[in-house]
C-alpha cells in the first residue's frame, strides 16, 4: 500500500513539474506571426481580404490559447501549437493564391490599357472625319483638347501599373475607354446627321 502511494506521489510530482514548467511555444508563435506578415507584404489586404482576416483571427485565437494556458497551473500548449501550425500552413498556402490573383489583376490591367488607347485612337480618327462648319468648329476644338487630355491620362494608367496598383489601373483605363467612346459616339452622330441632310 505504501509503495502504491509513493508511486502516485512521484507521478504527480513529475506531472506537475513538466506541466507547470512547460514553456510557451515562442518559436511557433514567431513562425506564425512571420508567415502572416509575409502574406500581408504579398498584398493580402488587396487580393485576399477575407482570407487575410480569417488568418488574423486564427492567429489571435491561437495567441489567446497560449495566454490562457500560460495562466493555468497545468499548462498544455499542444492545442496552441497545433493552432499556430495551422496558421502558418494556411498563410504559406495563401501566398501562391495572392500571387495568382495579383497576376490576374495585372493581366486585366494590361489588357485594359491597349483597349483604352485604341478607344482614344478611334475617337481621334472619327474627329478627322467630323463635319466642319457652323456649330461644329468649337466642338471640334473642344474634342481635340479632350482627346489630348485623354492621351495624357493613358500615362496615368502606366504609372498605376508600374506602382502595381492593378485594380486602379484597370479602373482608369476603363474610364478613359468610356470617355473616348462617348466622344466617338457624339462625332458619329454628327456625321450621321450631316449624311442625313445630304440625302
Amino acid at each position: 500500500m505504501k509503495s502504491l502511494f509513493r508511486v502516485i506521489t512521484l507521478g504527480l510530482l513529475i506531472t506537475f513539474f513538466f506541466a507547470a514548467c512547460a514553456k510557451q511555444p515562442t518559436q511557433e508563435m514567431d513562425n506564425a506571426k512571420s508567415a502572416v506578415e509575409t502574406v500581408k507584404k504579398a498584398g493580402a489586404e488587396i487580393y485576399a481580404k477575407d482570407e487575410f482576416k480569417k488568418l488574423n483571427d486564427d492567429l489571435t485565437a491561437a495567441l489567446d490559447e497560449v495566454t490562457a494556458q500560460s495562466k493555468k497551473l497545468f499548462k498544455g500548449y499542444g492545442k496552441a501549437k497545433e493552432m499556430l501550425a495551422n496558421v502558418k500552413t494556411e498563410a504559406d498556402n495563401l501566398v501562391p493564391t495572392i500571387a495568382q490573383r495579383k497576376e490576374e489583376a495585372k493581366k486585366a490591367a494590361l489588357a485594359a490599357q491597349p483597349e483604352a488607347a485604341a478607344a482614344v485612337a478611334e475617337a481621334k480618327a472619327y474627329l478627322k472625319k467630323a463635319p466642319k462648319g457652323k456649330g461644329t468648329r468649337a466642338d471640334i476644338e473642344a474634342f481635340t483638347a479632350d482627346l489630348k487630355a485623354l492621351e495624357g491620362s493613358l500615362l496615368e494608367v502606366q504609372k498605376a501599373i508600374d506602382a502595381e496598383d492593378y485594380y486602379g489601373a484597370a479602373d482608369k483605363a476603363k474610364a478613359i475607354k468610356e470617355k473616348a467612346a462617348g466622344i466617338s459616339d457624339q462625332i458619329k452622330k454628327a456625321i450621321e446627321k450631316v449624311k442625313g441632310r445630304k440625302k
Partner: protein
Amino acid sequence: MMRNWLIAILLLLSLSASGCKAPPVPSEVKETETQESNLWRVGSAFYASEDYLKYKESYRQAKNKLIKEKRKFIWFRKYKPVRLAFKNVLDEGAKLSQKVEIEKEIKSNKIMSQLASLKNRIDAVKKLSLIAKETLVARSAIISAELLMSEVGFMKQEGNLIAAEEKLNDISPYIEKAEETVRSFLARYVNERAIRTWKRWVNETISESTKNNIVVIIIDKLDRKLTVYKKGKAVGTYLIGLSRNGLSDKLHSGDFAIPEGKYRITKKLPSRRYHKALLLSYPSQEDLEEFSSAKMKGLVPEGASIGDSIEIHGGGNESLTDGCISLENKDINKIFDIVDLGTPVTIVRALSSPAKLPITRKGL
C-alpha cells in the same frame, strides 16, 4: 488491499457515470464568430466605427468568459453565463448590422448627390470654357475630373464606398482649376464700368416694356439666358447657345461674335434652317460708327464688312452659332408667338462680374 482496489474501481465507475466529457461549447460562440466575420466584411469598422469597437469589446469579454470557463476542470465548467454573454453579442451584432446597412445607404446617397453636384459644376464650366474659348487648360482639368468621377462610379458599383468617398475629394481641385482658368479668361471680357452701362440698357428696356405695355427681350450672354418681359415683368427665361466668340461684341463679319446693344425684331421667319428665327436690327447706328472707327484704326481685316443676319433662332441651345443666339425649338416656338415686329431686344455681355458666377463659387 482488496478493499482499496474496490474503492478505486467504484470511484472510476462513478466518474464515468457522471460523464468525463466536457460539456459542449454553446453554439452561439460559432455563430458570433461568423457574425463578426460578416460584420468586418461589410465594413462595419468604417461605417459604424464606434459601435463596431463596442461590439468588438463585448465580443472580447465574451471570449474571455469562455476561455475562463474552459480553463476550469471539465466537471466545474458552466456555460450558461457564456451562452448569455455570446447571445448579447449576437444581439448587439444584429443591431450593428442594421446600422451599417443604413449608414451605407446614407453614404451611397451622399456620393450620388456629390457626383451630381460635381457634374453640374463640370457642365457649367464646360460650356463656359467653350464661350471663353479656353479649351486647353480648362478642358484638360475637366477631363481629369470626369475620369475620376467615372472611377468613383466604378468603386460605388463594386460597393467600395469608402474608397469612392476618398476619391471624390480628388475631383474638386480639378474642377476648381478649370473654373479658375475660365474665370480669369472671362474677367478679360467684363469690367465694372461696362456692367453699369449694360445694366442701364436693361433697365431702359424693361421701363419701355412697363410704360408701353409691351413684350421685350433681354439677353445676358455670360449667364446664357434670354428673358422675356411683359409689362415690365419677367414671364419666361430660356437657356441660350452662343457663338464661339459669343462673349465678344460683334465688330465685323466672320468674327463669330454676338453684337451687344439695343435692337429690335425686324423680321419673323417661320421656317429657317434652324427652325424659326427672329431677325434683329443689326447693325445699329452705334454699330456702324464703331465699325468705321475700328476700320480706321486698322482693327478690321481687309475686305471684311460689318456683317448682318443676326438672328435668334432654334436648333438647340447646345450648338455653337456663327454669331446668332440659339434656343431649343420649343422655346423659340413660345417666344415667336408673343413677339411682334419692333419688339425691343437688348443684348448685354453680362449683368454681374465673373467673380459672382456660380462656377466660381467654391463648394457648389
